[in-house]
């Protein structure tokens, strides 16, 4: 496990050696901040007046913070594949994977190390997004439970994206192919949700399979262990597949 952390630390540091991580963080923050601003203005201008007379109106957290995390999740459908594409595909392309493969490290340690580095990046990203709702505490009271579950939900969602992206990156030796296929897979799961929840053709199974259906309860402030379990299974499943793929490479590659 020690080795996995060594790899994770180095991978995380290397992420920031290239402009990619910096620009992703900067652009995301900018776009989400614009959305956040829009939600606040809408709340102040329209929603506040509408809800003023309600008996039990939805709070500011529900109206501003939840959509922010939802949008972050949607945007990350495209961003996470870009972060994961390089992990194995680029190493393969540059023939640097040999370094890890000929060191006394198991495939599991390599995969875990790479995954931890991505998780660390995601954690940073979620923390930066969470700064926005925190800024609201200057003017109002927040539903802390809802903020926490939203952040946790986003973190789990993005980690599951990362695990899937990691696997698809291990299949390819071209980063672009890895990115496109990861994006395709993630989008496919979204489409499953959309088709499952469509008016005339709804399907519980499709909804259950889609990762977004397990994300939405978190945004409403629900913490359901079955949702947590879904993400854990999703992540472990893809990590195991990646480990298997690396082991298989030695036999067939």
């Amino acid at each position, binding site marked *: 496990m020690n080795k996995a952390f060594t790899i994770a630390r180095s991978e995380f540091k290397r992420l920031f*050696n290239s402009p990619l991580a910096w620009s992703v963080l900067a652009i995301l923050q900018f776009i989400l901040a614009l959305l956040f601003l829009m939600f606040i203005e809408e709340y102040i201008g329209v929603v506040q007046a509408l809800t003023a007379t309600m008996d039990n109106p939805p709070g500011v957290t529900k109206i501003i913070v939840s959509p922010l995390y939802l949008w972050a999740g949607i945007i990350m459908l495209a961003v996470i594949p870009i972060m994961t594409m390089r992990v194995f595909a680029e190493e393969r392309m540059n023939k*640097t994977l040999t*370094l890890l493969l*000929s060191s006394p490290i198991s495939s599991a340690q390599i995969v875990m190390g790479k995954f931890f580095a991505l998780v660390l990046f995601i954690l940073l990203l979620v923390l930066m997004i969470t700064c926005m709702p925190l800024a609201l505490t200057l003017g109002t009271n927040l539903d802390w439970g809802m903020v926490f579950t939203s952040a946790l939900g986003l973190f789990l969602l993005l980690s599951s994206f990362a695990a899937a992206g990691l696997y698809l990156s291990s299949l390819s030796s071209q980063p672009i192919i890895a990115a496109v296929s990861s994006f395709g897979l993630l989008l496919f799961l979204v489409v499953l949700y959309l088709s499952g929840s469509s008016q005339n053709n709804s399907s519980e199974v499709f909804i259950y399979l889609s990762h977004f259906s397990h994300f939405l309860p978190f945004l409403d402030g629900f913490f359901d262990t079955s949702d947590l379990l879904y993400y854990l299974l999703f992540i472990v499943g893809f990590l195991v597949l990646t480990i298997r793929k690396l082991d298989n490479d*030695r036999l067939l590659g």
Partner: protein
Amino acid sequence: MSTQALIQVMALNRYYGKYHAVNDFNLTLHKGEVLGLLGPNGAGKSTTMQMLTGNISPSSGDIVINGIDLLEEPLMAKRNIGYLPEQPPIYRDMTPLEFLNYCAALHDIPQNIKAKSLENTIQRCGLGDVQNKLIANLSKGYQQRVGIAQAILHQPELVILDEPTVGLDPIQITQIRELIRELGKDHSVILSTHILPEVQAVCDRVQIINQGKTVFADSFEQLAEQSASSLIVSFSDGGDKDDLAKVEGIEKVESIGANQYRLYFKQQPDPSRIFKLAVEQGWVLSELKTDSQTLEQIFMSLIHSDTLIVDDTDANTETDANTIKYIKKGGDGYNKGVDDE
């Protein structure tokens, strides 16, 4: 064998689909030996090295490194290996110091000796001046050195270098060769290359692979012994095969051109007798040289005349004479080929 072999490879085979890339590869290497692995492109050198370093698994066969089975206990066995593949596995967005630090951690170098072994390796590979520059900005030669540094950092018993001098300038090549020779003193080295003089310069033993098969394996000492047993003489005037055959110590005379003969001696060739005979008979001697089989000749003959080798190995049953004869016959085949062109 009294001393245990550092690496012992038995009947190694590797298929890529139906393609038989490595066919029955055997190797035994002892401490302090430098082995040169030669072969044309696509002979299976890199595949062999990848198997020896656990990057790919063999289809069949055994690899035992320092008494540890690589296939059974890969993590333990890999501690004894340092590997520089064809393309140095270096992260271009790190500095050599950062990179080597990372490698030290990957190889479990204890904290208390880490600083010292880093310093040692950097000094040994001449990376002192560039250790804080980005690897991407270094020249090919320095990148290669970072690759070598990575392979020897953890003081492995066995260093495996795949074409380490490709793309270097002549000065760097000399430096790298010196480094390899120095490594050969306290590590064992397996080196693959296309450059034949390089093998002669740094290796103790040579193993030639062609189309996945080992076609030649010997030490340089034995190579020298074999090759020094014949002389080539030419006369611009005179010369007689029968007279030459009567000279003491000569086993066989072979006519290889107009007034040109190859003389096989029973022991070490003695040019003075030939010279004396020529003076007595009044022949005009125009050439007298030892017919040393250079590595290049051997290599060319083995690679270019595959069919001859097969014929010969089938025909000869005495194993000892086998190697020598097929080299010589192969050599003729090669010469003929050149003449034809």
